[in-house]
């Protein structure tokens, strides 16, 4: 397409939108293939490539409008394609399916049954995306556009109404009015803390200083959460637009986007989005002729979890090691380079254009009182339908895990759901009917965090999970303050002892004591929230700790020192499938129809035989 050049007025933007929107309405068949980061391990690149080459080979470019998009959310079933009109949803597509899709579905309007979604073998196939329970029970106001746009095309974003909110803010609203709208909407920070966004903006606007900064925190370090990744990769312009509006409202002309090192695709897409926005005159001097100037810079993180903390992130932006500082003075007063700085999470920024477009009243009606809007969660672990889900706040945990997530894999029993990452906690079945909002999760000992939601079943050991998080935090502690540097280490050592059968009865008391010291005295939230995974597992799963300490048993069969693998003789058909994969040759083939022999002295408990055996003939004792 010919570049339209810089847009110099709001009218020019509106005209471009009108033109691009009309072009969308061609009546052609539209195929959008997900190529988000989570679809790639499943081979979405070759599928996208197959579509491109087959469409060309068959001369179908005039019949098909083909798009490679960011994350569609339903990662479990990737690679995914949505075909419009008709909202047809094809899943687990292989490159070899592509010719058939073009011939049957595009040319002859036939549905390919084998590619449709089915929750189980006995349930009927579902044709349309919006009828699949995974999608039907969501409210995808922020993430939904991912399926409609190519994230590398600013034209796509403008075609669906992108940057209209910016234009409205610049020409129809005063900065104070924008802040008023955000306050009235009730939007709270999506990075985990849940601080009212409008209040933060207002304080930053009123703070003294000519130069102010706005910052996007895209250092989503919480292991098991990738909502920010999905948003920044799939719809980078929505984040930029939110940032621009925020900068205008606060009175800032310089923005920073701090992207996590492990997110190369997000980095690429946001960098490209900025270049495009500059070419279109949406970033730079005198944006749309409004007199408002704004420039933005992308910084790549160095792989340190603590840099998700606002003061550590700002230190890193200044070119220093990412160590946090005490927040006697808030960063909205004195942050980056000691100037007023407003930092918000990716998802928070992406909500802003929606609020400006639709009004504060519209937004505040979504979700629950005091917790308005939606929240994106990364639903992972032992659920059937893993992926990125966006739900109105206040929805029950049960609705997310069972209605959207389709329940637990392999018909096993639910044990716990972990929210809030290393700063959060594990919640048991009795809390499944609790509403998901900032306040309820905090009250239960966990937190919202950046939206990780990891489901665990009876095969997960809660002591091991607590040990896992403390190991993570010990590695990621920056070492600046003693309570965190030493306290987390000691807690991890105690937990390791318990998982190795060396726990003492006094350990639980000691863990609680250390926890309260950390909560009271750590310098930043990494340390003060570090006890959460330990405290919640002790609170809700005390019997598991006791089994490890008193009986030297791991009921879930996870902790290596406390378990033993054994062959169940009357179930073993002697097929010998487990013999060769055993890395230590601990299994001996005796003869057909005779059970194999397992040498305990050689067994390293790697679980390979357990995973291979389909007869259930390997047991964990």
């Amino acid at each position, binding site marked *: 397409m010919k570049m339209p050049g810089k847009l110099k007025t709001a009218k020019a933007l509106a005209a471009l939108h009108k033109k691009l929107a009309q072009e969308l309405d061609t009546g052609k068949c539209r195929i959008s293939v997900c190529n988000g980061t989570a679809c790639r*391990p*499943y081979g979405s690149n070759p599928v996208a490539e197959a579509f491109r080459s087959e469409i060309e080979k068959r001369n179908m470019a005039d019949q098909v409008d083909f798009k490679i998009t960011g994350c569609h959310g339903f*990662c479990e079933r990737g690679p995914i394609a949505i075909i419009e009109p008709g909202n047809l949803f094809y899943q687990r597509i292989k490159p070899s399916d592509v010719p058939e899709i073009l011939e049957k579905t595009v040319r002859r309007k036939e549905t390919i049954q084998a590619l449709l979604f089915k929750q189980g073998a006995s349930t009927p196939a579902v044709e349309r995306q919006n009828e699949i329970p995974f999608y039907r029970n969501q409210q995808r106001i922020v993430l939904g556009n991912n399926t409609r746009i190519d994230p590398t095309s600013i034209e796509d974003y403008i075609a669906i109404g992108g940057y209209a909110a910016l234009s409205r803010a610049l020409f129809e609203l005063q900065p104070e009015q924008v802040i008023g709208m955000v306050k009235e909407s009730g939007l709270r920070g999506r990075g985990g803390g849940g601080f009212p966004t409008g209040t933060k903006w207002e304080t930053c606007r009123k703070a003294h200083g000519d130069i102010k900064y706005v910052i996007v925190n895209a250092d989503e370090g919480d292991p098991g959460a990738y909502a920010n990744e999905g948003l920044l990769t799939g719809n980078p312009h929505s984040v930029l637009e939110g940032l621009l509006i925020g900068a205008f409202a606060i009175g800032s002309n310089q923005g920073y986007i701090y992207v996590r090192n492990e997110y190369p695709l997000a980095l690429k897409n946001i960098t490209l989005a900025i270049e495009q926005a500059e070419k279109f005159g949406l970033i730079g001097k005198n944006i749309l002729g409004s007199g408002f100037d704004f420039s933005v810079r992308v*910084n790549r993180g*160095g792989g*340190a979890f603590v840099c998700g903390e606002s003061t550590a992130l700002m230190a890193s932006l200044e*070119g220093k*090691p990412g160590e946090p500082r005490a927040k006697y003075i808030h960063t909205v007063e004195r942050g980056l380079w000691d100037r007023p700085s407003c930092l918000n999470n990716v998802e928070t920024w992406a909500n802003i254009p929606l609020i400006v477009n639709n009004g504060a009243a519209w937004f505040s009606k979504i979700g629950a009182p005091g917790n308005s809007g939606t929240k994106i969660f990364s639903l992972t672990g032992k659920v059937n339908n*893993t992926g990125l889900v966006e739900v109105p706040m206040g929805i029950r945990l049960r609705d997310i895990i069972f209605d959207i997530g389709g329940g637990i894999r392999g018909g096993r029993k639910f044990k716990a759901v972990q929210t809030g990452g290393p700063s959060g906690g594990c919640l048991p079945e009795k809390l499944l009917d609790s509403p998901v909002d900032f306040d309820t999760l905090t009250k239960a000992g966990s937190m919202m965090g950046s939206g990780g939601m990891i489901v665990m079943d009876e095969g997960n050991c809660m002591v091991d999970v607590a040990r896992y998080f403390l190991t993570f935090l010990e590695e990621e502690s920056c070492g600046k303050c003693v309570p965190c540097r030493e306290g987390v280490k000691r807690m991890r050592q105690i937990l390791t002892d318990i998982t190795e059968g060396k726990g003492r009865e006094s350990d639980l008391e000691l863990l609680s004591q250390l926890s309260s010291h950390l909560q009271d005295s750590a310098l930043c939230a990494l340390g003060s929230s570090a006890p959460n995974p330990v405290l919640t597992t002790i609170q809700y799963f005390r019997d598991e700790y006791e089994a490890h300490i008193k009986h030297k048993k791991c009921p879930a069969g996870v902790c290596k020192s406390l378990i033993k693998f054994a062959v169940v003789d009357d179930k073993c058909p002697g097929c010998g499938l487990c013999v060769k994969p055993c890395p230590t040759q601990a299994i001996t083939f005796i003869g057909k129809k005779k059970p194999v022999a397992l040498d305990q002295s050689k067994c390293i408990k*790697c679980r390979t035989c357990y995973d291979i055996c389909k007869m259930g003939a390997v047991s964990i004792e």
Partner: protein
Amino acid sequence: MTDKVAGIIRKHGGDPSQMVAILQDIQSEYNYLPRAALDKLSRKMDMPLSQVYSMATFFRAFSLEERGKHIVSVCLGTACHVRGADLILESLERQLHVKRGQTTPDRGFTLESVNCMGCCATGPVVKIGEEFFGQMTNDKVEPMLNKFKE
């Protein structure tokens, strides 16, 4: 080496706030942070070597040792952990005969762990170079490695 380091510093305008980016560029050039490059950087930027070292060791992404041709990253994020990522790491350690953080003697592979790569739904995940492998099991480890062995 000196020209390349000087070029990288120039690209970032000699701006000390761009230290992470500068180190990242040096690492992508050499696959690790060679001592000589850090010396050069310290002189050019007029920054004590100890400060450069502090940056290089604070951030996980940097390596002061030469790394292998293929970087094998095992995700140990929570979602991968609950699906048995530890066992995949152990399996890789056995087959490559190195521990986490080490490089094979022939410099073919470096085994590393990362805390989440943002594709949690497909865990356990392993990344070799730019290629992702999802839903890993112990028996998939050997064929996966074979693809990269010469």
